[in-house]
Protein backbone atom coordinates (compact mmCIF):
# COMPACT_ATOMS: atom_id res chain seq x y z
CA UNK A 1 0.00 0.00 0.00
CA UNK A 2 1.10 3.50 -0.69
CA UNK A 3 1.54 5.75 2.29
CA UNK A 4 -1.30 8.28 2.75
CA UNK A 5 -0.87 11.50 0.88
CA UNK A 6 1.08 9.85 -1.88
CA UNK A 7 -1.36 9.11 -4.64
CA UNK A 8 -0.62 6.54 -7.26
CA UNK A 9 -0.55 9.27 -9.89
CA UNK A 10 2.41 10.97 -8.30
CA UNK A 11 4.58 7.87 -8.64
CA UNK A 12 6.20 7.88 -12.05
CA UNK A 13 4.43 5.11 -13.96
CA UNK A 14 6.03 2.60 -16.24
CA UNK A 15 5.04 4.61 -19.28
CA UNK A 16 6.61 7.72 -17.87
CA UNK A 17 9.76 5.83 -17.04
CA UNK A 18 9.95 4.75 -20.67
CA UNK A 19 9.94 8.41 -21.65
CA UNK A 20 13.02 9.10 -19.59
CA UNK A 21 15.15 6.94 -21.84
CA UNK A 22 17.42 8.95 -24.02
CA UNK A 23 16.25 9.62 -27.55
CA UNK A 24 19.38 7.99 -28.91
CA UNK A 25 18.60 4.76 -27.13
CA UNK A 26 15.05 4.65 -28.39
CA UNK A 27 16.14 5.36 -31.95
CA UNK A 28 18.96 2.86 -31.69
CA UNK A 29 16.65 0.15 -30.42
CA UNK A 30 14.22 0.87 -33.22
CA UNK A 31 16.90 0.83 -35.90
CA UNK A 32 18.49 -2.41 -34.74
CA UNK A 33 15.12 -4.06 -34.33
CA UNK A 34 14.12 -2.93 -37.81
CA UNK A 35 17.41 -3.98 -39.43
CA UNK A 36 17.39 -7.43 -37.90
CA UNK A 37 13.72 -7.95 -38.72
CA UNK A 38 14.48 -6.93 -42.29
CA UNK A 39 17.32 -9.45 -42.53
CA UNK A 40 15.09 -12.21 -41.14
CA UNK A 41 12.35 -11.20 -43.56
CA UNK A 42 14.78 -11.35 -46.49
CA UNK A 43 15.85 -14.83 -45.41
CA UNK A 44 12.25 -16.01 -45.42
CA UNK A 45 11.46 -14.10 -48.61
CA UNK A 46 14.27 -15.90 -50.45
CA UNK A 47 12.48 -19.21 -49.85
CA UNK A 48 9.31 -17.92 -51.45
CA UNK A 49 11.21 -16.12 -54.22
CA UNK A 50 12.94 -19.39 -55.11
CA UNK A 51 9.64 -21.27 -55.30
CA UNK A 52 8.09 -18.46 -57.33
CA UNK A 53 10.96 -18.09 -59.83
CA UNK A 54 11.30 -21.81 -60.37
CA UNK A 55 7.54 -22.24 -60.84
CA UNK A 56 7.58 -19.25 -63.18
CA UNK A 57 10.43 -20.67 -65.25
CA UNK A 58 8.75 -24.04 -65.47
CA UNK A 59 5.40 -22.53 -66.43
CA UNK A 60 5.68 -22.93 -70.26
CA UNK A 61 6.39 -26.64 -69.79
CA UNK A 62 3.71 -27.02 -67.14
CA UNK A 63 1.19 -25.46 -69.53
CA UNK A 64 2.35 -27.63 -72.43
CA UNK A 65 2.69 -31.03 -70.77
CA UNK A 66 0.52 -30.56 -67.65
CA UNK A 67 0.72 -33.39 -65.17
CA UNK A 68 1.19 -35.85 -68.00
CA UNK A 69 4.87 -34.82 -67.72
CA UNK A 70 5.11 -36.84 -64.53
CA UNK A 71 4.52 -40.20 -66.18
CA UNK A 72 5.68 -39.61 -69.73
CA UNK A 73 8.81 -41.64 -70.43
CA UNK A 74 10.30 -40.02 -73.46
CA UNK A 75 13.01 -37.34 -73.29
CA UNK A 76 13.70 -36.29 -76.83
CA UNK A 77 15.07 -32.80 -77.37
CA UNK A 78 14.88 -32.69 -81.19
CA UNK A 79 11.23 -33.78 -81.15
CA UNK A 80 10.44 -31.52 -78.17
CA UNK A 81 9.01 -34.42 -76.24
CA UNK A 82 9.79 -34.40 -72.56
CA UNK A 83 8.71 -36.58 -69.67
CA UNK A 84 10.00 -37.08 -66.16
CA UNK A 85 8.91 -40.58 -65.23
CA UNK A 86 12.25 -42.34 -65.59
CA UNK A 87 14.04 -39.47 -63.90
CA UNK A 88 11.67 -39.55 -60.94
CA UNK A 89 12.06 -43.33 -60.71
CA UNK A 90 15.84 -42.95 -60.99
CA UNK A 91 15.91 -40.34 -58.24
CA UNK A 92 13.77 -42.45 -55.92
CA UNK A 93 15.70 -45.66 -56.63
CA UNK A 94 19.16 -44.15 -56.10
CA UNK A 95 18.16 -42.24 -52.97
CA UNK A 96 16.21 -45.04 -51.32
CA UNK A 97 18.89 -47.55 -52.29
CA UNK A 98 21.48 -45.28 -50.72
CA UNK A 99 19.40 -44.93 -47.57
CA UNK A 100 18.93 -48.70 -47.39
CA UNK A 101 22.70 -48.95 -47.07
CA UNK A 102 23.31 -45.74 -45.14
CA UNK A 103 20.60 -45.97 -42.47
CA UNK A 104 21.76 -49.19 -40.76
CA UNK A 105 25.42 -48.19 -41.16
CA UNK A 106 24.78 -44.74 -39.68
CA UNK A 107 22.85 -46.12 -36.71
CA UNK A 108 25.64 -48.63 -36.12
CA UNK A 109 28.28 -45.88 -36.29
CA UNK A 110 26.20 -43.74 -33.94
CA UNK A 111 25.98 -46.62 -31.48
CA UNK A 112 29.68 -47.38 -31.78
CA UNK A 113 30.61 -43.77 -31.07
CA UNK A 114 28.16 -43.28 -28.21
CA UNK A 115 28.09 -46.62 -26.40
CA UNK A 116 30.95 -48.82 -27.49
CA UNK A 117 34.11 -46.96 -28.38
CA UNK A 118 36.70 -46.23 -25.69
CA UNK A 119 36.96 -42.46 -25.09
CA UNK A 120 40.36 -42.29 -26.77
CA UNK A 121 38.84 -43.48 -30.05
CA UNK A 122 35.53 -41.60 -29.78
CA UNK A 123 36.89 -38.14 -30.55
CA UNK A 124 39.15 -38.94 -33.51
CA UNK A 125 36.71 -41.33 -35.22
CA UNK A 126 33.83 -38.92 -34.70
CA UNK A 127 35.86 -36.11 -36.24
CA UNK A 128 36.89 -38.32 -39.16
CA UNK A 129 33.29 -39.29 -39.90
CA UNK A 130 32.23 -35.65 -39.76
CA UNK A 131 35.09 -34.71 -42.07
CA UNK A 132 33.58 -37.02 -44.65
CA UNK A 133 30.66 -34.56 -44.68
CA UNK A 134 33.02 -31.69 -45.48
CA UNK A 135 34.39 -33.35 -48.62
CA UNK A 136 32.85 -31.43 -51.54
CA UNK A 137 30.45 -33.44 -53.69
CA UNK A 138 32.46 -32.77 -56.84
CA UNK A 139 35.50 -34.42 -55.23
CA UNK A 140 33.44 -37.45 -54.21
CA UNK A 141 32.18 -37.56 -57.80
CA UNK A 142 35.70 -37.35 -59.23
CA UNK A 143 36.75 -40.19 -56.95
CA UNK A 144 33.61 -42.04 -58.01
CA UNK A 145 34.49 -41.83 -61.71
CA UNK A 146 38.13 -42.84 -61.52
CA UNK A 147 38.37 -45.10 -58.47
CA UNK A 148 34.99 -46.40 -57.37
CA UNK A 149 33.36 -47.02 -60.76
CA UNK A 150 36.20 -49.19 -62.17
CA UNK A 151 36.37 -51.09 -58.87
CA UNK A 152 32.60 -51.66 -58.98
CA UNK A 153 32.70 -52.80 -62.58
CA UNK A 154 35.57 -55.23 -62.09
CA UNK A 155 34.91 -56.69 -58.66
CA UNK A 156 31.58 -55.81 -57.08
CA UNK A 157 29.27 -56.18 -60.08
CA UNK A 158 30.45 -59.65 -61.19
CA UNK A 159 30.27 -60.84 -57.59
CA UNK A 160 26.79 -59.49 -56.87
CA UNK A 161 25.67 -60.43 -60.38
CA UNK A 162 26.67 -64.05 -59.98
CA UNK A 163 25.26 -64.30 -56.46
CA UNK A 164 22.00 -62.44 -56.98
CA UNK A 165 21.80 -62.28 -60.78
CA UNK A 166 18.59 -64.30 -60.87
CA UNK A 167 16.80 -61.26 -59.41
CA UNK A 168 16.20 -58.91 -62.38
CA UNK A 169 17.42 -55.77 -60.61
CA UNK A 170 20.83 -57.36 -60.08
CA UNK A 171 21.04 -58.80 -63.60
CA UNK A 172 24.55 -58.38 -64.90
CA UNK A 173 25.40 -58.27 -68.59
CA UNK A 174 28.57 -59.50 -70.27
CA UNK A 175 30.22 -56.14 -70.76
CA UNK A 176 31.43 -54.21 -67.75
CA UNK A 177 29.55 -50.92 -67.44
CA UNK A 178 31.31 -48.32 -65.31
CA UNK A 179 28.66 -45.61 -65.04
CA UNK A 180 25.79 -47.27 -63.26
CA UNK A 181 22.89 -46.61 -60.93
CA UNK A 182 24.66 -48.84 -58.43
CA UNK A 183 27.79 -46.65 -58.37
CA UNK A 184 25.59 -43.60 -57.84
CA UNK A 185 23.98 -45.35 -54.87
CA UNK A 186 27.36 -46.03 -53.28
CA UNK A 187 28.47 -42.43 -53.83
CA UNK A 188 25.24 -41.14 -52.27
CA UNK A 189 25.65 -43.55 -49.36
CA UNK A 190 29.07 -42.09 -48.66
CA UNK A 191 27.69 -38.57 -48.76
CA UNK A 192 24.73 -39.31 -46.51
CA UNK A 193 26.45 -41.38 -43.79
CA UNK A 194 28.23 -38.46 -42.07
CA UNK A 195 24.99 -36.47 -41.83
CA UNK A 196 22.81 -39.23 -40.39
CA UNK A 197 25.47 -40.83 -38.22
CA UNK A 198 26.47 -37.60 -36.48
CA UNK A 199 22.81 -36.83 -35.68
CA UNK A 200 22.34 -40.42 -34.44
CA UNK A 201 25.40 -40.13 -32.23
CA UNK A 202 24.08 -36.92 -30.63
CA UNK A 203 20.72 -38.59 -30.04
CA UNK A 204 22.19 -41.71 -28.47
CA UNK A 205 24.48 -39.63 -26.23
CA UNK A 206 21.41 -37.68 -25.11
CA UNK A 207 19.67 -40.76 -23.73
CA UNK A 208 19.65 -40.39 -19.92
CA UNK A 209 22.39 -42.45 -18.32
CA UNK A 210 19.99 -43.50 -15.53
CA UNK A 211 17.86 -45.37 -18.05
CA UNK A 212 20.88 -47.17 -19.44
CA UNK A 213 22.22 -48.02 -16.01
CA UNK A 214 18.83 -49.29 -14.89
CA UNK A 215 18.71 -51.59 -17.87
CA UNK A 216 22.23 -52.91 -17.26
CA UNK A 217 21.41 -53.25 -13.58
CA UNK A 218 18.47 -55.48 -14.43
CA UNK A 219 20.89 -57.82 -16.17
CA UNK A 220 20.52 -56.79 -19.80
CA UNK A 221 23.49 -57.18 -22.10
CA UNK A 222 24.71 -54.07 -23.87
CA UNK A 223 22.92 -55.05 -27.06
CA UNK A 224 19.67 -55.66 -25.15
CA UNK A 225 20.05 -52.26 -23.51
CA UNK A 226 20.50 -50.63 -26.94
CA UNK A 227 17.55 -52.52 -28.42
CA UNK A 228 15.11 -52.01 -25.57
CA UNK A 229 16.14 -48.67 -24.08
CA UNK A 230 18.48 -46.53 -26.17
CA UNK A 231 16.92 -46.87 -29.63
CA UNK A 232 13.25 -46.75 -28.54
CA UNK A 233 13.92 -43.61 -26.47
CA UNK A 234 15.11 -41.65 -29.50
CA UNK A 235 13.26 -43.49 -32.27
CA UNK A 236 11.64 -40.34 -33.66
CA UNK A 237 14.96 -38.53 -33.87
CA UNK A 238 16.55 -41.44 -35.70
CA UNK A 239 13.71 -41.46 -38.23
CA UNK A 240 14.13 -37.71 -38.71
CA UNK A 241 17.88 -38.13 -39.22
CA UNK A 242 17.26 -40.73 -41.90
CA UNK A 243 14.71 -38.49 -43.63
CA UNK A 244 17.17 -35.57 -43.56
CA UNK A 245 19.79 -37.79 -45.16
CA UNK A 246 17.25 -38.84 -47.75
CA UNK A 247 16.59 -35.18 -48.56
CA UNK A 248 20.28 -34.65 -49.16
CA UNK A 249 20.48 -37.72 -51.40
CA UNK A 250 17.44 -36.69 -53.44
CA UNK A 251 18.88 -33.27 -54.24
CA UNK A 252 22.48 -34.22 -54.99
CA UNK A 253 23.22 -33.25 -58.57
CA UNK A 254 26.93 -33.07 -59.23
CA UNK A 255 28.35 -36.30 -57.83
CA UNK A 256 25.45 -38.32 -59.22
CA UNK A 257 25.70 -36.79 -62.67
CA UNK A 258 29.41 -37.66 -62.71
CA UNK A 259 28.93 -41.38 -62.06
CA UNK A 260 25.43 -42.39 -63.16
CA UNK A 261 25.93 -42.25 -66.93
CA UNK A 262 23.09 -39.79 -67.66
CA UNK A 263 21.05 -42.19 -69.71
CA UNK A 264 17.35 -42.89 -69.98
CA UNK A 265 15.15 -44.89 -70.66
CA UNK A 266 15.94 -46.58 -67.40
CA UNK A 267 16.70 -50.29 -67.41
CA UNK A 268 15.51 -52.71 -64.80
CA UNK A 269 18.97 -53.65 -63.54
CA UNK A 270 20.90 -51.34 -61.21
CA UNK A 271 24.09 -52.33 -63.05
CA UNK A 272 23.05 -50.17 -65.99
CA UNK A 273 23.29 -46.41 -66.53
CA UNK A 274 20.43 -44.22 -65.38
CA UNK A 275 19.68 -40.63 -64.48
CA UNK A 276 18.03 -38.56 -61.77
CA UNK A 277 16.11 -35.27 -61.72
CA UNK A 278 18.95 -33.20 -60.28
CA UNK A 279 21.64 -34.79 -62.41
CA UNK A 280 19.64 -34.27 -65.62
CA UNK A 281 19.23 -30.59 -64.82
CA UNK A 282 22.95 -30.30 -64.12
CA UNK A 283 23.90 -32.19 -67.25
CA UNK A 284 21.64 -30.59 -69.82
CA UNK A 285 21.07 -27.03 -68.73
CA UNK A 286 24.15 -25.64 -70.45
CA UNK A 287 23.37 -27.34 -73.70
CA UNK A 288 19.64 -26.65 -73.73
CA UNK A 289 18.65 -24.60 -76.75
CA UNK A 290 14.90 -24.51 -77.18
CA UNK A 291 12.70 -22.72 -74.71
CA UNK A 292 10.61 -25.85 -74.26
CA UNK A 293 13.66 -27.82 -73.21
CA UNK A 294 14.77 -25.14 -70.75
CA UNK A 295 11.28 -24.95 -69.30
CA UNK A 296 11.13 -28.74 -69.08
CA UNK A 297 14.42 -28.82 -67.19
CA UNK A 298 13.10 -26.20 -64.77
CA UNK A 299 9.94 -28.32 -64.48
CA UNK A 300 12.25 -31.12 -63.30
CA UNK A 301 13.77 -28.75 -60.75
CA UNK A 302 10.26 -27.85 -59.60
CA UNK A 303 9.40 -31.53 -59.05
CA UNK A 304 12.64 -31.91 -57.13
CA UNK A 305 11.82 -28.85 -55.05
CA UNK A 306 8.41 -30.25 -54.14
CA UNK A 307 9.86 -33.65 -53.23
CA UNK A 308 12.65 -32.24 -51.05
CA UNK A 309 10.25 -29.76 -49.43
CA UNK A 310 7.91 -32.59 -48.45
CA UNK A 311 10.82 -34.64 -47.09
CA UNK A 312 12.13 -31.77 -44.98
CA UNK A 313 8.75 -30.85 -43.57
CA UNK A 314 8.16 -34.53 -42.80
CA UNK A 315 11.46 -34.66 -40.90
CA UNK A 316 10.54 -31.57 -38.89
CA UNK A 317 7.09 -32.99 -38.14
CA UNK A 318 8.61 -36.21 -36.86
CA UNK A 319 11.00 -34.29 -34.61
CA UNK A 320 8.17 -32.13 -33.26
CA UNK A 321 5.86 -35.07 -32.56
CA UNK A 322 8.70 -36.92 -30.97
CA UNK A 323 9.57 -34.00 -28.69
CA UNK A 324 5.90 -33.62 -27.80
CA UNK A 325 5.66 -37.29 -26.92
CA UNK A 326 8.73 -37.13 -24.77
CA UNK A 327 7.75 -34.05 -22.83
CA UNK A 328 4.05 -34.96 -22.75
CA UNK A 329 4.68 -38.52 -21.68
CA UNK A 330 7.15 -37.74 -18.93
Amino acid at each position, binding site marked *: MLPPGMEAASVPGAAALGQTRRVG*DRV*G*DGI*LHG*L*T*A*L*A*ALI*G*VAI*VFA*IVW*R*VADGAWPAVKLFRLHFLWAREWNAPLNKFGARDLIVGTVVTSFGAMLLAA*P*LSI*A*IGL*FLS*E*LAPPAIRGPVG*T*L*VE*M*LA*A*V*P*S*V*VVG*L*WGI*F*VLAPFDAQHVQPFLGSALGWIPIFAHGQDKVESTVFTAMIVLT*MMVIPITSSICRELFIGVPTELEEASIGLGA*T*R*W*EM*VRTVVVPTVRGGVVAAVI*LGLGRAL*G*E*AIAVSQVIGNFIPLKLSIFEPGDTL*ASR*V*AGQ*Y*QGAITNVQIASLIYL*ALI*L*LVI*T*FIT*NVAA*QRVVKRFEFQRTGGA
Partner: protein
Amino acid sequence: MSEPALSLKATGRSRRRLLTNRGAEVGASAAAAIAVAALLVLIWSVGSRGVSALNWDFFTKGPAVFGEAGGGVAPALVGSLLLVAIATALALPFGVLAAIYVSEFAHPRFGRQVRLWLDVLNGFPSIVIGIFVFALCVKVSLPVVGWGRHQSAIAGGSALAIIMLPLVARATMEVLTLVPNELREASYALGVSKWQTVLRVVLPTSLGGILTGTTLAIARAAGETAPLLFTCAIAGQIVDWNPSHSVQSIPLMIFQNSESPDPNLHAQAWAGAFVLIVFVLVTSLTARFLLDRSRRKLGLQR
Protein backbone atom coordinates in the same frame (compact mmCIF):
# COMPACT_ATOMS: atom_id res chain seq x y z
CA MET B 1 29.16 -84.76 0.40
CA SER B 2 30.69 -82.49 -2.13
CA GLU B 3 28.84 -79.70 -3.83
CA PRO B 4 28.69 -79.95 -7.62
CA ALA B 5 31.26 -77.49 -9.03
CA LEU B 6 29.52 -74.27 -10.03
CA SER B 7 30.52 -73.35 -13.54
CA LEU B 8 30.69 -69.63 -14.41
CA LYS B 9 30.60 -70.47 -18.09
CA ALA B 10 27.44 -69.22 -19.69
CA THR B 11 25.32 -71.90 -21.21
CA GLY B 12 22.05 -72.15 -23.07
CA ARG B 13 20.04 -68.98 -23.08
CA SER B 14 22.56 -66.65 -21.51
CA ARG B 15 25.25 -67.96 -23.83
CA ARG B 16 23.02 -67.07 -26.76
CA ARG B 17 22.42 -63.59 -25.33
CA LEU B 18 26.11 -62.99 -24.86
CA LEU B 19 26.86 -64.15 -28.38
CA THR B 20 24.20 -61.82 -29.82
CA ASN B 21 25.72 -59.01 -27.81
CA ARG B 22 29.17 -59.80 -29.11
CA GLY B 23 27.83 -59.95 -32.66
CA ALA B 24 26.17 -56.54 -32.34
CA GLU B 25 29.35 -55.01 -30.93
CA VAL B 26 31.43 -56.39 -33.77
CA GLY B 27 28.83 -55.16 -36.28
CA ALA B 28 28.83 -51.60 -34.92
CA SER B 29 32.62 -51.47 -34.80
CA ALA B 30 32.81 -52.79 -38.35
CA ALA B 31 30.40 -50.07 -39.54
CA ALA B 32 32.58 -47.36 -38.01
CA ALA B 33 35.66 -49.00 -39.51
CA ILE B 34 34.04 -48.99 -42.96
CA ALA B 35 33.21 -45.29 -42.73
CA VAL B 36 36.71 -44.36 -41.60
CA ALA B 37 38.25 -46.62 -44.25
CA ALA B 38 36.13 -44.97 -46.96
CA LEU B 39 37.36 -41.54 -45.92
CA LEU B 40 40.97 -42.68 -45.77
CA VAL B 41 40.77 -44.32 -49.22
CA LEU B 42 39.20 -41.14 -50.60
CA ILE B 43 41.83 -38.86 -49.11
CA TRP B 44 44.62 -41.21 -50.09
CA SER B 45 43.53 -41.39 -53.75
CA VAL B 46 43.05 -37.63 -53.97
CA GLY B 47 46.37 -37.05 -52.22
CA SER B 48 48.43 -39.51 -54.22
CA ARG B 49 47.05 -38.40 -57.58
CA GLY B 50 46.80 -34.73 -56.73
CA VAL B 51 50.25 -34.09 -55.33
CA SER B 52 52.00 -35.49 -58.39
CA ALA B 53 50.13 -33.02 -60.61
CA LEU B 54 50.90 -30.04 -58.41
CA ASN B 55 53.62 -27.64 -59.46
CA TRP B 56 54.29 -23.94 -59.58
CA ASP B 57 52.63 -23.54 -62.99
CA PHE B 58 49.44 -25.02 -61.58
CA PHE B 59 48.98 -22.00 -59.33
CA THR B 60 50.27 -19.28 -61.62
CA LYS B 61 49.38 -20.09 -65.21
CA GLY B 62 46.20 -20.21 -67.22
CA PRO B 63 44.98 -23.43 -68.86
CA ALA B 64 47.07 -24.85 -71.70
CA VAL B 65 45.83 -25.13 -75.25
CA PHE B 66 43.65 -28.20 -75.62
CA GLY B 67 45.68 -31.41 -75.79
CA GLU B 68 48.91 -29.82 -74.64
CA ALA B 69 50.51 -30.73 -71.36
CA GLY B 70 51.17 -28.19 -68.63
CA GLY B 71 49.17 -25.13 -67.85
CA GLY B 72 47.49 -24.22 -64.60
CA VAL B 73 44.32 -23.09 -62.97
CA ALA B 74 45.20 -19.59 -61.81
CA PRO B 75 41.94 -18.11 -63.22
CA ALA B 76 39.90 -20.72 -61.38
CA LEU B 77 41.75 -20.11 -58.12
CA VAL B 78 41.18 -16.37 -58.34
CA GLY B 79 37.58 -16.96 -59.38
CA SER B 80 36.90 -19.23 -56.42
CA LEU B 81 38.46 -16.68 -54.08
CA LEU B 82 36.30 -13.92 -55.54
CA LEU B 83 33.11 -16.01 -55.38
CA VAL B 84 33.62 -17.05 -51.78
CA ALA B 85 34.52 -13.47 -50.77
CA ILE B 86 31.34 -12.11 -52.34
CA ALA B 87 29.24 -14.88 -50.81
CA THR B 88 30.69 -14.27 -47.35
CA ALA B 89 30.24 -10.51 -47.63
CA LEU B 90 26.56 -11.07 -48.40
CA ALA B 91 25.73 -13.98 -46.13
CA LEU B 92 27.58 -12.92 -42.97
CA PRO B 93 25.72 -9.66 -42.20
CA PHE B 94 22.31 -10.97 -43.24
CA GLY B 95 22.76 -14.26 -41.41
CA VAL B 96 23.96 -12.64 -38.18
CA LEU B 97 21.25 -9.96 -38.24
CA ALA B 98 18.53 -12.53 -38.89
CA ALA B 99 19.83 -14.63 -36.02
CA ILE B 100 19.89 -11.59 -33.69
CA TYR B 101 16.28 -10.91 -34.64
CA VAL B 102 15.23 -14.45 -33.81
CA SER B 103 16.98 -14.74 -30.47
CA GLU B 104 16.95 -11.15 -29.17
CA PHE B 105 14.00 -9.27 -30.62
CA ALA B 106 11.35 -11.52 -32.11
CA HIS B 107 8.27 -12.84 -30.41
CA PRO B 108 8.93 -16.58 -29.94
CA ARG B 109 6.22 -17.42 -32.44
CA PHE B 110 7.80 -15.31 -35.21
CA GLY B 111 11.23 -16.57 -34.23
CA ARG B 112 10.09 -20.16 -34.70
CA GLN B 113 8.68 -19.32 -38.11
CA VAL B 114 11.91 -17.66 -39.29
CA ARG B 115 13.93 -20.59 -38.02
CA LEU B 116 11.60 -23.04 -39.78
CA TRP B 117 11.87 -21.28 -43.13
CA LEU B 118 15.64 -21.00 -42.83
CA ASP B 119 15.72 -24.76 -42.25
CA VAL B 120 13.61 -25.23 -45.35
CA LEU B 121 16.05 -23.04 -47.28
CA ASN B 122 18.90 -25.16 -45.98
CA GLY B 123 17.14 -28.26 -47.27
CA PHE B 124 16.70 -26.93 -50.81
CA PRO B 125 18.89 -28.75 -53.35
CA SER B 126 21.77 -26.49 -54.31
CA ILE B 127 21.03 -26.95 -58.00
CA VAL B 128 17.60 -25.36 -57.53
CA ILE B 129 19.30 -22.34 -55.96
CA GLY B 130 21.53 -22.15 -59.02
CA ILE B 131 18.48 -22.10 -61.27
CA PHE B 132 16.88 -19.41 -59.11
CA VAL B 133 19.85 -17.08 -59.36
CA PHE B 134 20.15 -17.84 -63.04
CA ALA B 135 16.54 -16.85 -63.59
CA LEU B 136 16.93 -13.77 -61.40
CA CYS B 137 20.29 -12.27 -62.33
CA VAL B 138 21.47 -13.90 -65.49
CA LYS B 139 18.50 -14.49 -67.71
CA VAL B 140 16.38 -11.49 -66.81
CA SER B 141 18.25 -8.26 -66.56
CA LEU B 142 17.20 -6.23 -63.57
CA PRO B 143 17.64 -2.53 -64.29
CA VAL B 144 18.07 -1.77 -60.60
CA VAL B 145 20.79 -4.32 -60.14
CA GLY B 146 22.44 -3.33 -63.35
CA TRP B 147 24.88 -6.12 -64.02
CA GLY B 148 22.22 -7.79 -66.10
CA ARG B 149 22.07 -10.39 -68.73
CA HIS B 150 25.20 -12.37 -68.32
CA GLN B 151 26.94 -14.73 -66.00
CA SER B 152 29.07 -13.00 -63.41
CA ALA B 153 30.99 -13.51 -60.22
CA ILE B 154 28.31 -11.49 -58.46
CA ALA B 155 25.62 -13.89 -59.65
CA GLY B 156 27.65 -16.93 -58.61
CA GLY B 157 28.55 -15.31 -55.30
CA SER B 158 24.88 -14.58 -54.60
CA ALA B 159 24.01 -18.20 -55.25
CA LEU B 160 26.68 -19.31 -52.80
CA ALA B 161 25.47 -16.67 -50.33
CA ILE B 162 21.98 -18.22 -50.36
CA ILE B 163 23.58 -21.53 -49.45
CA MET B 164 25.64 -19.95 -46.68
CA LEU B 165 22.84 -17.81 -45.22
CA PRO B 166 20.94 -20.51 -43.30
CA LEU B 167 24.20 -22.07 -42.10
CA VAL B 168 25.51 -18.78 -40.70
CA ALA B 169 22.13 -17.85 -39.22
CA ARG B 170 21.64 -21.22 -37.59
CA ALA B 171 25.14 -21.28 -36.08
CA THR B 172 24.72 -17.72 -34.77
CA MET B 173 21.34 -18.53 -33.21
CA GLU B 174 22.85 -21.47 -31.42
CA VAL B 175 25.71 -19.47 -29.96
CA LEU B 176 23.42 -16.56 -29.01
CA THR B 177 21.32 -18.89 -26.88
CA LEU B 178 24.51 -19.93 -25.12
CA VAL B 179 25.19 -16.35 -23.98
CA PRO B 180 24.20 -16.31 -20.29
CA ASN B 181 21.16 -14.19 -19.53
CA GLU B 182 22.97 -12.75 -16.51
CA LEU B 183 25.21 -10.80 -18.88
CA ARG B 184 22.22 -9.19 -20.59
CA GLU B 185 20.55 -8.46 -17.25
CA ALA B 186 23.71 -6.96 -15.81
CA SER B 187 23.92 -4.66 -18.80
CA TYR B 188 20.26 -3.59 -18.48
CA ALA B 189 20.73 -3.02 -14.76
CA LEU B 190 23.50 -0.56 -15.56
CA GLY B 191 21.00 1.35 -17.67
CA VAL B 192 22.40 0.30 -21.01
CA SER B 193 19.86 0.22 -23.79
CA LYS B 194 18.96 -2.92 -25.66
CA TRP B 195 20.77 -2.14 -28.91
CA GLN B 196 23.97 -1.34 -27.08
CA THR B 197 23.60 -4.49 -25.00
CA VAL B 198 23.25 -6.53 -28.18
CA LEU B 199 26.15 -4.85 -29.98
CA ARG B 200 28.54 -4.45 -27.05
CA VAL B 201 27.78 -7.39 -24.79
CA VAL B 202 25.97 -10.17 -26.63
CA LEU B 203 27.80 -10.02 -29.96
CA PRO B 204 31.37 -9.79 -28.60
CA THR B 205 30.63 -12.70 -26.27
CA SER B 206 29.42 -14.86 -29.11
CA LEU B 207 31.95 -13.71 -31.70
CA GLY B 208 33.95 -16.93 -31.55
CA GLY B 209 30.93 -19.07 -32.28
CA ILE B 210 29.78 -16.82 -35.11
CA LEU B 211 33.22 -16.98 -36.72
CA THR B 212 33.19 -20.76 -36.37
CA GLY B 213 29.81 -21.03 -38.07
CA THR B 214 30.95 -18.70 -40.84
CA THR B 215 34.14 -20.67 -41.38
CA LEU B 216 32.17 -23.91 -41.70
CA ALA B 217 29.81 -22.19 -44.15
CA ILE B 218 32.80 -20.94 -46.18
CA ALA B 219 34.18 -24.47 -46.31
CA ARG B 220 30.85 -25.67 -47.62
CA ALA B 221 30.48 -22.86 -50.16
CA ALA B 222 34.02 -23.28 -51.50
CA GLY B 223 33.20 -26.80 -52.62
CA GLU B 224 29.74 -26.18 -54.07
CA THR B 225 29.47 -26.80 -57.79
CA ALA B 226 25.80 -27.02 -58.67
CA PRO B 227 24.87 -23.37 -58.04
CA LEU B 228 27.79 -22.21 -60.18
CA LEU B 229 26.87 -24.34 -63.19
CA PHE B 230 24.49 -21.75 -64.59
CA THR B 231 25.75 -18.59 -62.98
CA CYS B 232 29.46 -18.72 -63.76
CA ALA B 233 31.66 -19.47 -66.71
CA ILE B 234 32.93 -22.91 -67.62
CA ALA B 235 36.08 -21.76 -69.28
CA GLY B 236 38.36 -18.94 -68.27
CA GLN B 237 41.70 -18.29 -69.88
CA ILE B 238 43.04 -15.34 -67.95
CA VAL B 239 43.04 -14.17 -64.37
CA ASP B 240 40.17 -11.76 -63.90
CA TRP B 241 39.47 -9.82 -60.71
CA ASN B 242 36.41 -7.98 -61.99
CA PRO B 243 33.35 -9.24 -60.10
CA SER B 244 30.98 -8.20 -62.88
CA HIS B 245 32.75 -10.56 -65.25
CA SER B 246 32.13 -14.24 -65.43
CA VAL B 247 34.81 -16.22 -63.60
CA GLN B 248 36.02 -19.79 -63.61
CA SER B 249 36.12 -21.66 -60.30
CA ILE B 250 37.89 -24.69 -58.83
CA PRO B 251 34.85 -26.96 -58.28
CA LEU B 252 33.54 -26.25 -61.77
CA MET B 253 37.02 -26.89 -63.21
CA ILE B 254 37.09 -30.28 -61.49
CA PHE B 255 33.60 -31.11 -62.75
CA GLN B 256 34.43 -30.07 -66.30
CA ASN B 257 37.81 -31.79 -66.43
CA SER B 258 36.52 -35.01 -64.90
CA GLU B 259 34.20 -35.46 -67.87
CA SER B 260 36.79 -34.67 -70.52
CA PRO B 261 38.77 -37.41 -72.29
CA ASP B 262 42.14 -35.67 -71.85
CA PRO B 263 44.35 -37.36 -69.19
CA ASN B 264 46.24 -34.09 -68.72
CA LEU B 265 43.00 -32.46 -67.65
CA HIS B 266 42.27 -35.40 -65.36
CA ALA B 267 45.55 -34.77 -63.59
CA GLN B 268 44.56 -31.14 -63.18
CA ALA B 269 41.20 -32.17 -61.79
CA TRP B 270 42.94 -34.33 -59.17
CA ALA B 271 45.29 -31.51 -58.28
CA GLY B 272 42.33 -29.14 -57.99
CA ALA B 273 40.51 -31.68 -55.83
CA PHE B 274 43.58 -31.93 -53.60
CA VAL B 275 43.79 -28.16 -53.17
CA LEU B 276 40.05 -27.99 -52.47
CA ILE B 277 40.06 -30.86 -49.99
CA VAL B 278 43.04 -29.45 -48.11
CA PHE B 279 41.34 -26.06 -47.92
CA VAL B 280 38.03 -27.53 -46.79
CA LEU B 281 39.50 -29.91 -44.23
CA VAL B 282 41.86 -27.31 -42.77
CA THR B 283 39.07 -24.73 -42.46
CA SER B 284 36.62 -27.13 -40.87
CA LEU B 285 39.20 -28.47 -38.45
CA THR B 286 40.17 -24.93 -37.48
CA ALA B 287 36.51 -24.08 -37.04
CA ARG B 288 36.00 -27.09 -34.82
CA PHE B 289 38.98 -26.10 -32.72
CA LEU B 290 37.71 -22.52 -32.39
CA LEU B 291 34.27 -23.81 -31.45
CA ASP B 292 35.64 -25.95 -28.66
CA ARG B 293 37.58 -23.00 -27.34
CA SER B 294 34.70 -20.53 -27.46
CA ARG B 295 32.37 -23.09 -25.83
CA ARG B 296 34.83 -23.53 -23.03
CA LYS B 297 35.11 -19.78 -22.61
CA LEU B 298 31.34 -19.39 -22.44
CA GLY B 299 31.14 -22.25 -19.99
CA LEU B 300 33.67 -20.60 -17.69
CA GLN B 301 31.78 -17.33 -17.64
CA ARG B 302 28.67 -18.99 -16.32
